[in-house]
């Protein structure tokens, strides 16, 4: 009898327990191990509905944390969420002991291989490693040879990818050695699961992950070689474009290190510095999350020409420690695999504990013959062996080919390539792997799995153990087991938490504890210039979006009312604001078209959803998202969550056709609340450091501009035609108060009488009204004085002069004098003041960028001109050639 599992109580039905389990998981007596049994019992006691409920809760938590693989996808504009399965993978103490030993041995082995091939090369001299695997290997970076000859401190952070065969045996598939990702995701998975199954977790003697990361931190401190109590450690990321950016943000926070990008760092002399608002700060250790060849454009001539020029020389001179050591990528070479057992005996004088997946390197004649024979057989209709043929060097231009699935033509091409450059290829035996149960939409499914274990080779500050293995793993699941062999598997989203059990009671240990009791207290945090720039723009875009939404709401409210359009007298005024804010075309306001409801609808919908218009709500949101993503590590999780909600809101309505206006009205109201919440959370949860200042400055600059534009729209046309002051009727004034969010303030002061003088006073001069231009100028003055380098001294900086000038002008203005009309009924003084304020605000924005943020601009300039492996080659390229 089939029953919908969600409504049957048990998660694992009895029948599933006997037949559906992969034999590799079962004990020799075909029983579940006590660890699996414990898990099954616990999940069954919860029951399917409860499991589903908790799983949904977990998904929400992940979403709130912003857990995603590729946070910032250029094409989609959104990241694919990181998928976590609620059923953990339990590992018995015995299995864990074997895995730990095996991975630790591999870690020592790979470190020894690194030392040899970038040093004396005895392995190739003595025939333990075929020289082709270095000489033809694009991952072997000759520039790194001898880089660590002087025994400069370094650290290796490895990943070992394993699979479990159907018979339960463990095999190593591949290694991650230059900057393996996944440890942060494993940590995130653990945090989520321990929250949704707290009882199970705490009762179960599950080994904690924190001590591993503590050891990592100690090792990073140790390799600085400076003996400083707090060496400056940075994590080098390629930024939000990196698929694993979420993890980098997460790990850098967890480890308490600064997350930087290449453009934040510079080499001076033989040392590395972080470019900040306050100047250059020395960096002792770089934990890099970027590829070897992206590290130094001078040495590696990478096509992207990104990186830190001079970094390799700084490493060589001992001015900075980089981990993983430069050149590590070679250790990921798939072609090394068949030689590891022999090398292990030579270098470590031990037998390899964990076997490799069967790998044939076609540079050996007998292996080539076997692979060609298998290809031949599969083409002549025989059952193909489950072989996956892939680049021996793991280069991306040669993705793996599963010969069971390849077309005849593909196989023929492959055979030709194998014959012409056999050393370029390996063939792996995909076999059939062990599967794990996965919770999928309320039912259990069996999925293939691969396991990524993490290890560290490096001595901690107290010469603690030299190798440690993270007691846990990133368990990835997929429909197709072969994908784990075809690529690094990073593109596969499904994952499980891995619980390594201990016989001993497990003590609780937190990373935070370690930091709070040993570190000095920091208050004044300096900021990388790039981050400050992004903060400034985040503030600006958020405020700009909010302003646009307010005007849109006022218009939509009126369109939805019963009144006919031509009777709504303030309608032209509102359209003028929209035109002046460049939300609708300037030609649109004041024309007959503006009274056609269909035309207006089309125009407003475009103003919200069009991707073509620079100022549309959708595009503004994209800007907010992009800038927020680039300072993800500086924003609180809550504010990030709010941002995601706003995006959902926008996505929800954008494609609906019916009831556009009323839907839009509702949407805009919700979005105003959401974006105010975002701004509030982002600013409130941030320390009053430089990041906060720059974000608030962006906000104030934008709001000053907005308020000035509103006032200009009331009194003047965009083309500077001075408008008669008489024409501003009370309905316009009411609408102005509405879009400026100052209605309540006005009415509590002046009751219902609407006059332009008190309104202008409220919106322009009143420093108590947080919406007034005067308020923005006063805040900007405070910020500017607190910027680095603006400590009290005899001369005022240019930006101080601008804010002083603007604030003083506003404070000295007499409202009746300002509002005195000339004979034509115009308001020339107001006109002049608004014009001057507008220009001043722009000048202030430019000046702040020029003074504090220009360092990033120069760097970009260099990148553009550095387009080849020679000197900055533009017009000089022709002349400067060997003849």
């Amino acid at each position, binding site marked *: 009898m089939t029953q919908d599992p969600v409504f049957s109580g048990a998660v694992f039905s009895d029948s599933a327990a006997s037949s559906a389990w992969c034999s590799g998981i079962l004990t020799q007596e075909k029983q579940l191990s006590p660890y699996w049994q414990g898990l099954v019992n616990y999940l069954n006691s919860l029951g399917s509905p409860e499991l589903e409920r908790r799983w949904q809760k977990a998904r929400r938590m992940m979403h709130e944390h912003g857990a995603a693989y590729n946070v910032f996808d250029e094409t989609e504009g959104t990241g694919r969420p990181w998928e976590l399965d609620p059923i953990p993978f339990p590992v018995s103490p015995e299995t864990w002991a074997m895995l730990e030993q095996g991975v630790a041995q591999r870690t020592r082995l790979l470190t020894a291989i690194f030392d040899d091939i970038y040093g004396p090369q005895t392995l*190739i*001299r003595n025939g333990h490693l075929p*020289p*082709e695997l*270095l*000489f*033809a290997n*694009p991952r072997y970076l*000759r*520039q790194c*040879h*001898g880089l660590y000859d002087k025994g400069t401190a370094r650290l290796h952070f490895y990943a070992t990818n394993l699979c479990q065969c159907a018979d339960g045996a463990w095999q190593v598939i591949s290694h991650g050695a230059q900057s393996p990702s996944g440890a942060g995701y494993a940590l995130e998975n653990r945090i989520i699961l321990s929250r949704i199954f707290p009882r199970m977790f705490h009762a179960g003697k599950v080994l904690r992950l924190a001590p591993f990361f503590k050891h990592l931190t100690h090792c990073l401190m140790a390799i600085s070689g400076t003996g400083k109590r707090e060496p400056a450690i940075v994590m080098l990321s390629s930024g939000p474009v990196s698929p694993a950016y979420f993890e980098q943000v997460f790990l850098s926070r967890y480890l308490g290190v600064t997350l930087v990008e290449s453009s934040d760092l*510079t*080499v*001076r*002399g*033989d040392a590395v510095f972080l470019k900040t608002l306050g100047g250059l700060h020395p960096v002792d250790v770089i934990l890099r999350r970027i590829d070897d060849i992206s590290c130094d*454009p*001078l*040495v590696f*001539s990478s096509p992207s020409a990104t990186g830190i*020029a*001079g970094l390799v*020389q700084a490493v*060589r*001179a001992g001015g900075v420690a980089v981990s993983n050591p430069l050149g590590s990528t070679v250790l990921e070479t798939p072609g090394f695999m068949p030689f590891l057992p022999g090398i292990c005996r030579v270098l470590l004088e031990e037998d390899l504990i964990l076997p490799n997946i069967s790998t044939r390197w076609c540079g050996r004649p007998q292996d080539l013959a076997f692979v060609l024979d298998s290809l031949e057989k599969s083409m002549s209709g025989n059952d193909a062996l489950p072989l996956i043929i892939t680049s021996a060097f793991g280069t991306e231009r040669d993705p793996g080919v599963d010969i069971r699935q390849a077309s005849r033509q593909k196989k023929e091409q492959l055979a030709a390539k194998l014959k*012409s450059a056999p050393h370029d290829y390996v063939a792996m035996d995909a076999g059939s792997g062990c599967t794990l149960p996965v919770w999928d939409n309320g039912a259990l499914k069996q999925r293939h799995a691969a396991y990524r274990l993490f290890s560290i080779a490096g001595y901690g500050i107290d010469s603690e153990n030299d190798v440690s293995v993270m007691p846990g793993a990133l368990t990835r699941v997929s429909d197709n087991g072969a994908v784990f062999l075809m690529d690094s598997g990073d593109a596969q989203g499904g994952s499980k938490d891995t619980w390594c059990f201990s016989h001993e009671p497990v003590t609780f240990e937190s990373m935070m504890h370690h930091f709070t009791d040993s570190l000095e207290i920091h208050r004044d945090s300096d900021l990388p210039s790039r981050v400050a720039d992004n903060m400034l723009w985040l503030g600006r875009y958020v405020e700009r979006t909010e302003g646009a939404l307010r005007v849109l709401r006022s218009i939509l409210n009126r369109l939805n009312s019963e009144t006919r359009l031509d009777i709504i007298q303030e309608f032209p005024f509102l359209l003028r604001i929209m035109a002046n804010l460049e939300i609708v075309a300037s030609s649109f306001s004041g024309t007959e078209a503006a009274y056609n409801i269909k035309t207006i609808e089309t125009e407003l919908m475009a103003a919200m959803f069009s991707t073509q218009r620079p100022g549309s709500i959708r595009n503004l949101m994209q800007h907010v998202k992009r800038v927020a993503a680039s300072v993800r590590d500086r924003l609180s999780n809550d504010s990030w969550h709010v941002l995601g909600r706003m995006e959902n809101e926008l996505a929800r309505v954008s494609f609906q056709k019916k009831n556009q206006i009323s839907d839009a009205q509702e949407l805009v109201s919700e979005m105003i609340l959401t974006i105010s919440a975002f701004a509030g959370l982002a600013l409130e949860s941030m320390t009053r450091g430089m990041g906060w200042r720059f974000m608030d400055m962006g906000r104030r600059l934008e709001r000053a501009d907005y308020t000035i534009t509103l006032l200009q729209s009331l009194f003047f046309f965009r083309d500077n035609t001075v408008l008669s002051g008489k024409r501003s009727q009370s309905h316009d004034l009411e609408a102005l108060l509405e879009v400026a969010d100052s209605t309540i303030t006005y009415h509590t002061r002046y009751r219902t009488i609407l006059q332009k003088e008190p309104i202008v006073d409220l919106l322009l001069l009143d420093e108590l009204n947080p919406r007034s231009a005067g308020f923005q100028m006063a805040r900007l003055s405070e910020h500017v004085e607190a910027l680095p380098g603006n400590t009290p001294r005899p001369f005022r900086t240019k930006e101080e002069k601008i804010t002083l000038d603007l604030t003083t002008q506003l404070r000295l203005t007499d409202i009746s004098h300002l509002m005195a009309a000339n004979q034509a009924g115009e308001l020339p003084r107001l006109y002049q003041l608004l014009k001057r304020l507008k220009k001043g605000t722009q000048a202030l924005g430019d000046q702040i960028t020029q003074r504090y943020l220009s360092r990033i601009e*120069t*760097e970009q*300039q*260099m990148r553009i*001109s*550095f387009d*080849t*492996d*020679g*000197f*900055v*080659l*533009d*017009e*000089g*390229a*022709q*002349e*400067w*050639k*060997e*003849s």
Partner: protein
Amino acid sequence: MERIMKYAISHITQYRYKQTASLSHNELFLIPRQTPVQHCMDHTLTLSPTPSAMSQRKDYFGNSVTATTVQVPHTLFEISAKSRVDLIPNPAPVPEETVPWEQVIAAVRRHATPEDLDAFQYVFPSPMIPVSDDLARWVKDLFPPGAPLLAAALGVTERIFTRFTYDPGATTTTTPVATVFDLKRGVCQDFAHIAIACLRSLGLPARYVSGYLHTQPPPGKDRLKGAEASHAWFAVYLPGTGWVDLDPTNNVIPFDQHLTLAWGRDYSDVTPVKGTVLGGGRHQLSVAVDVIRLRNPH
């Protein structure tokens, strides 16, 4: 009796920037390396402005490489390399008497000696030099079974010399080998790359040599100062004998006029001057090379 040729080399590189440059990192391959026939007696490397850091080391291929950083604002950057070199020319083996080319392939594949093992790395594609069937086909007729390697390699050299046009405007330092091959135009660096690509496509080791050429002025005229430029050629490997240079630009086996700076798999391994600069805007580059033969003090 050995005949010692003495040379003085001056290689001056200047960058003039439109705007102020504030930071410059450089890697220089400007110190002549020691070879079986060449001894660098003396060298000086002077940078202006004075670099804040300057260090020298041997690279993977045994070349001297200098790393420098200039971090004072400047609009003119000058690198002046001067050296004195003794050359004891050694006649090349008789081409027709060298080993068959198949034996060279077999020897480096077997790599029984450290020299063969070292030569083996020059068989494979390198960052700027791919291998291809097209290139192999283009020279295949020069390699009949049992053909002596040096004779066949001279054939390649001559083929490039006769079928390619020397044209400094046709290519840049980054023009791919395939494009040069289609254009049949280029400069010494391109010709060396083409020759190496052909040989490697057949499975033979070949390496890139960067250096200078001493030229004789036309009869009755003075040598033009600074008229020379840096030069490039290639070398083939003869097991048991060593490397033999070949110059496809001039269709000669270098003897007493070629001075070696450095060698590697291709231009990218031994680019004489490369660097990055912060700021500076557009720049103008000028290079002046002088190779002067000194009279022997008899």
